[in-house]
């Protein structure tokens, strides 16, 4: 599944200072759909190069990291249970850096 992932607010530093990643994520064997839960674990394994605790806490993002799916707050679409489809754009923004 082709997805565009964007990291901002300082999170890009965790993935080699690259903000936009066009990625291909395969469905896990035996599963019919890809959820945000699956994507986060994929991102942690494949994109985050350092300090993963800045990005995740437990199986979700660290509190203070905002997530938008196709420019819509993921709190409106079911957060971890949101099902992703081809060409979705997922944005992660940290709010934790100085003001």
């Amino acid at each position, binding site marked *: 599944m082709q997805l565009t992932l*964007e990291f*901002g*607010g*300082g999170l890009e*530093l965790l993935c080699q200072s690259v903000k936009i990643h066009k990625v291909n994520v395969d469905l896990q064997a035996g599963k019919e759909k890809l959820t945000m839960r699956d994507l986060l674990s994929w991102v942690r394994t494949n994109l985050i190069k350092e300090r993963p605790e800045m990005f995740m806490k437990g199986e979700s993002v*660290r*509190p*203070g990291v*905002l997530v*938008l*799916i*196709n*420019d*819509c*707050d993921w*709190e*409106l*679409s079911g957060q971890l249970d*949101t099902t992703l*489809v081809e*060409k*979705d*754009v997922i*944005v992660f*923004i*940290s*709010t*934790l*850096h*100085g*003001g």
Partner: protein
Amino acid sequence: MAEVEPKQKKASGRQCCICNQRRAVLKRPKTLEQICRECFYAVFEDEIHRVIVDNQLFKPGERIAIGASGGKDSTVLAYVLSELNRRHKYGLDLFLLSVDEGITGYRDDSLETVKRNEIQYGLPLKVVSYKDLYGWTMDEIVKMIGLKNNCTFCGVFRRQALDRGAALLKVDKLVTGHNADDIAETVLLNILRGDIARLSRCTSITTGEDGPIPRCKPFKYTYEKEIVMYAYFKRLDYFSTECIYSPNAYRGFAREFIKDLERIRPRAILDIIKSGEDFRISTSTKMPEQGTCERCGYISSQKWCKACVLLEGLNRGLPKLGIGRSRGLNGHKKDIEQINQMNNIQSKPCGSLDF
């Protein structure tokens, strides 16, 4: 992002609860309402306008400096304030005021952001530097003292630097981008530290009214989440790299705790601010008396202000002076021990918690 086609499947069933027309894009932490982008801009700006009017933050004709770091909060503040000033005819003269701490690879980059903001928002910019004011850059200070108490120096110096910059600009007030999350965090920290004096003033929307330049916080009730969402949707140009001398500073446990609370119950942030406001300090509590520094004339509860003590230490090659409680200028062994014991408590990570 322009190539993104609107997705229908996630749009269905999620209408804005204000206009009932457009697709909701945001859940407001304050009210849990689901709202669309246009209604979000409207309520976000309108709430800040209400805070400004209800608290009489400004008077027509005033000159106002916006403390601008290039980060999200001050960038959004500069944008919104210039917008509201035009829209509601506040009649304010707005300026951007930045402090150059002299941190290569951090502040020089964020100052570039402020310089772009100067052009984008048409606001004149004044930069004051630690080097000019104190004779030291943070790079030089860290070279001398290491990475242990550097945030103490930086915090004390920044506070004065902003006041001096504001005086140079001849402004009537200084506004800062401290948001609701910052204030809730400060309330908690001041309770934990037992700092009664700061606890009683940290929730005030305006402080320093008895001093030369009052400060106010128009974002006192504005959630960080909404500030960042606003900056994202409006594509505002802000800088978001952590300070190189304070890595992980934002992991401060109070901040983490606030963010955990917010996830469970977003109103908790406003509730903590309310608790801070409602704290009543017994009238018999002895508070530090505010005087002026004998050396530089800045407000101080001691003979010398904190900046002068720290500076004296740097210039004399005794950088631990002023760290901890010891105030003696001839470092006795006992003082040093005491200083060392205090380090753990006194050195706090940066995060502009003192205001």
